[in-house]
C-alpha cells in the first residue's frame, strides 16, 4: 500500500501576537511549524502503513527550508520525502497548489493520499478535494475515524454538522483528517537518526511535467487584491458593582438588545 501524506510548513500561530495599537500581526521571529492538522495526517498514514506493511511518502511544496518539515516527519517514521520547490511555484493559490501537488502525486503513485483538513494560515480546506479532482479519484473530507482498510476499499467516519457519516470508498482515495482522529506519535531515536541521513527528493516544475503557465501566480485564477485589518470591536461596555449587580446589568443589556 502506497500512502502519500501532504504537509505544509506554516507560521506558529501560538507565537503570533496582535499589536493592539494597529490590530495587525506581530510576526517578528515567529517560528514555523508543521500545520497541526497535517501531523494527524502523518499519524494516520503511519498507522495504515503498520497495518498494511505499506510505505509512507511525505510531500510538501514550499521554499527550500520546508525540507525541515520533511525531516521532522521522517523522524516519526515516514519512509520517503519529496520537496516541491521552484520559483515557478511562487504565489500559487489553491487551484495552482492542488494542480502542482497532483502532478507530483501522479509521479509518486499512491493508493491513499492523506491531508490535514486545512492549513491554519489560509484556512481554505480546498487543496485536498481539489487534488482528488485533478487525479480523478474520490475523496472524503473531515475524517474522524478510520474503521477499516482493505486492499481496494476503505471505511471511515466523516464528521458532519449533526453527527457523523460512515462512508466507504474504493481505492485510490484522498482523505482529509481532523484532530479527533488520533494523537501524533513522537519521533523515535531511530527515526531521528534516519531523518539526519535521509535524502530528500527535490522536484521542480519540469520534473513533474507542470507547465509554468499552470502553476504559481500565473496559474492561479484568484488574486489577492488587498489585505486589511479587521474592524476593532466598538461595543465594549463595562459593568459595575458587585457580582449580582453586574449580572443584573448584563440581563438588562441582553433585554435592550432584544436577545431575551
Amino acid at each position: 500500500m502506497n500512502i502519500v501524506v501532504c504537509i505544509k510548513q506554516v507560521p506558529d500561530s501560538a507565537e503570533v501576537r496582535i499589536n493592539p495599537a494597529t490590530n495587525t500581526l506581530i510576526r517578528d521571529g515567529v517560528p514555523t511549524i508543521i500545520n497541526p492538522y497535517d501531523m494527524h495526517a502523518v499519524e494516520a498514514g503511519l498507522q495504515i502503513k503498520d497495518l498494511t506493511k505499506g510505505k509512507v511518502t511525505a510531500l510538501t511544496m514550499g521554499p527550500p527550508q520546508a525540507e525541515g518539515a520533511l525531516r521532522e516527519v521522517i523522524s516519526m517514521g515516514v519512509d520517503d520525502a519529496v520537496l516541491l520547490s521552484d520559483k515557478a511555484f511562487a504565489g500559487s493559490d489553491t487551484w495552482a497548489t492542488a494542480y502542482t501537488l497532483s502532478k507530483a502525486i501522479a509521479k509518486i503513485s499512491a493508493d491513499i493520499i492523506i491531508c490535514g483538513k486545512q492549513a491554519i494560515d489560509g484556512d481554505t480546506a480546498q487543496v485536498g478535494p481539489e487534488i482528488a479532482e485533478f487525479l480523478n479519484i474520490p475523496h472524503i473530507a473531515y475524517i474522524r475515524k478510520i474503521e477499516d482498510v482493505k486492499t481496494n476499499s476503505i471505511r471511515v467516519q466523516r464528521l458532519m454538522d449533526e453527527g457523523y457519516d460512515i462512508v466507504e470508498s474504493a481505492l485510490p482515495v484522498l482523505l482529509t483528517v481532523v484532530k479527533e482522529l488520533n494523537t501524533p506519535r513522537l519521533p523515535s531515536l531511530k527515526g531521528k537518526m534516519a531523518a539526519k541521513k535521509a535524502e530528500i527528493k527535490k522536484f521542480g516544475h519540469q520534473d513533474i511535467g507542470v507547465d509554468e503557465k499552470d502553476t504559481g501566480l500565473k496559474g492561479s485564477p484568484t488574486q489577492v487584491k488587498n489585505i486589511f485589518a479587521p474592524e476593532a470591536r466598538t461595543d465594549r461596555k463595562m459593568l459595575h458593582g458587585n457580582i449580582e449587580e453586574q449580572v443584573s446589568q448584563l440581563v438588562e443589556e441582553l433585554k435592550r438588545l432584544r436577545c431575551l
Partner: protein
Amino acid sequence: MSITVDREKCSGCETCVSACPFTAIEMTMGKAVITEYCQACMACIAACPEGAIKEIPEVQEAQKPQEGKGVWIFAEQREGKVAPVAHELLGAGRILAGQLKTELSAILFGSTQDEAKELVKWGADKVYHCADPIFEKFNDEPYSKLLINLIRDYKPEIVLAGATPIGRSFIPRVAARLRTGLTADCTALEIEKDTGRLMQIRPAFGGNIMATILCPNNRPQIATVRPRVMKKGEYNPDKKGEIISVSAGNLHCRTKVIETVHDTSECRVNLQEADVIVAGGRGLGDAKGFNMLFELAETLNGTVAASRAAVDEGWIQYRHQVGQTGKTVCPKIYIACGISGAVQHLVGMQSSDIIIAINKNPEAPIFNVASYGIAGDLYEIVPMLIKKIKETKGN
C-alpha cells in the same frame, strides 16, 4: 505581476518582514528577499520606508474575462430539508444580482418539489432541481459532477455555496475541474465598481487579517460563504419563479454512505447555526461543570461549545470545540465561561455579534474581545444568570 526589491535602496530595516502577512520576506545578507510564499498582496510596498519594493506588472495582453451571466446559489439539503444557509445565500445573491442587473437562481439536489418552491419564495427567480435519489445522501462525486455539468451548460457569472462541511468538501472539485477561482469562507461579498467583478472578502490567519480576493479572468467566480454572516433574503409567499427539473444523467460514484449517525449528546443545535453559544474552558474544573452550561444554553435556546483545553481534558466531545483546531462560529451571543482566551480560541469566535466573558482572572485576554465582562467565580455567576434570565422570561 510579481514583487521585487531594489537592493540598492533596501536599508535592511526589516519593516517589510513584519508587514508581510504570508512570511514571504526573508533577510539575506542584510537585504530583503521575496520568497515563494509571496501572494503579491503588496502589503510590503506600502510598508517600505525607502520605497525599495515595487511591483512588476506581467507583460501580457489585457485578458477579457470569460463569459458568464447570472448569480447562482447552491441550496444544500440535509435529509431533504433545505439548510438555513441557503436562505442567507439567497439574501446575499439577491443584492449581487440586483447590482449586476441579472437573475438569481438556486440549485437544489435531492429534496422535494415543495422545497424547490420554497426557494422561490425566499428570493430565487429560477430553481434548477434534480430530484434523483442519488442525492439523498451526500457524496462528493455526483454532487460535483452534476454542478459542473450545469455550470458548463448555463455559464453563470457567480456561484455561491455555504461554507459548511458539504459545501467546503465538494465545491473545490467543481472549481478544480472548471479551472476557475474559489474563495473559501467569505464573510462579505461586493461588486467592484466599473469592472463588475466579485470582491470576495474573507478572514485569514483566523480572522486576524482580512483579505479581498478577486478572480479576474476565469468564470464563474465561486465562493463559499460562512453561515450566519449574510442576512437572509426576504420571504415572499406570493413570489413567482420557474422550477426547472434537471435529470442526473449517468453519475459515477465511488463512495457510499453506509450510515448517518446523529449526535446523541444534549447538544442538538449545530454550532455553526446557533444564535447563542455558551462555551466552557479549563476554568470549569471538571466535566460536571458543563451541566450548568447546558442549562444556561437551554434557557437561551442555544448550544454548548468548549475550548481546546476542556476537550483535551476529556470533559466534552471534540465536535464542540471552537477555535483554530475546532470550529469557527459567529453566533449572536457567545458566552465564554472559564475560558482565558488564547489566540487559538479567539480566532474561532471573535466575529460573534456579542461576546460575554466570565472568568475569575480579570487580566484574562478573553476580556479584550468581550462586549461585556464579569470577573468572578463562574459557579456563582452562571447560576445567578440562569435564575435572572428565567425571571425575566417569566415576566
